[in-house]
């Protein structure tokens, strides 16, 4: 048996510390140092977690699609690609959910309502439910290769929703604002420390995603290995015996 080091390495531990420090910095900048918005007042502070959350989800689903494409391409049929895809998909679902909830709370304060069926919110809800379905499809059973094949196909279809979500505010009439940074005019519409706080949030959440995905895909590697040797069920049984 290996030493009980879990899924961590010295590199992930260093990355974890960096992420914690950056998130602390984000909290200071977002909640304390950055100024209020002239129209929205202090409610703008929700933006510093809402936008990085959906950004992280986009990255996660992008990685899911890339890994799925590599797996399906046949050049490298390693199941590691499938595990990276699954881990990223799971983390993406978490961050879309966070984005929907924080956006809803922000919407209550600025729009005056928690939810509307406009293009951005509706397409984001559809994105969320698609990837919940993706995670469920991964759990349907069969061999690891069957799981990898069917979920890779689904991931390549689901990624087509990302441009639909991002450009929904320009394609259709929406209550949701247009992008303040990545907009078609290429004009940044945020003042000094507001822009810095948002940028810090994007970097911190991206590094948090990298840390999470490394740990999760390693745990998935162990799950697959245990599933192969039927040990998972035995461990559960032993744990139940110990608890009884």
């Amino acid at each position, binding site marked *: *048996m*290996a*030493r*009980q*080091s*879990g*899924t*961590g*390495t010295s590199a992930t531990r260093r990355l974890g510390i960096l992420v914690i420090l950056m998130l602390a910095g984000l*909290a200071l900048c*977002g*909640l304390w140092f950055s100024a209020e918005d002239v129209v929205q*007042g*202090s*409610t703008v*502070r*929700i933006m510093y*977690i*809402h936008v990085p*959350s959906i950004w992280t989800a986009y990255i996660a689903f992008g990685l899911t699609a890339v890994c799925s494409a590599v797996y399906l391409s046949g050049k490298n049929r390693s199941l590691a690609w499938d595990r990276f895809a699954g881990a990223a998909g799971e*983390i993406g679902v*978490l961050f879309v*959910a*966070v984005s929907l*909830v*924080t956006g809803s*709370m*922000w919407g*209550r*304060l600025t729009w005056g309502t928690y939810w509307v069926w406009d293009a951005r919110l509706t397409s984001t809800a559809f994105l969320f439910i698609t990837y919940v379905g993706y995670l469920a499809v991964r759990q349907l059973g069969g061999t690891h290769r069957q799981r990898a094949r069917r979920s890779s196909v689904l991931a390549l279809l689901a990624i087509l929703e990302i441009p639909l979500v991002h450009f929904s505010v320009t394609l259709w009439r929406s209550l949701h604002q247009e992008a303040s940074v990545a907009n078609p005019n290429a004009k940044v519409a945020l003042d000094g420390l507001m822009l810095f706080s948002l940028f810090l949030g994007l970097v911190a959440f991206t590094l*948090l995603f990298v840390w*999470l995905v490394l*740990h*999760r895909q*390693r*745990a998935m*590697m*162990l*799950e697959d*290995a*245990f599933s192969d040797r039927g*040990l998972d069920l035995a*461990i559960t049984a032993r744990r139940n015996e110990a608890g009884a």
Partner: protein
Amino acid sequence: MKHASFIFGSWGLTAVSVAVYAVWVIRRGRELAKHATREEMPWT
């Protein structure tokens, strides 16, 4: 701060959600690693 409950609530909810998931991932990894061979953990 005006609307403090909504602002801190949204930050808190985000922090708790991510922290709960991160702790679950770490604990799951540690639990599985206890019974894994070195060959099954190529990162060690």
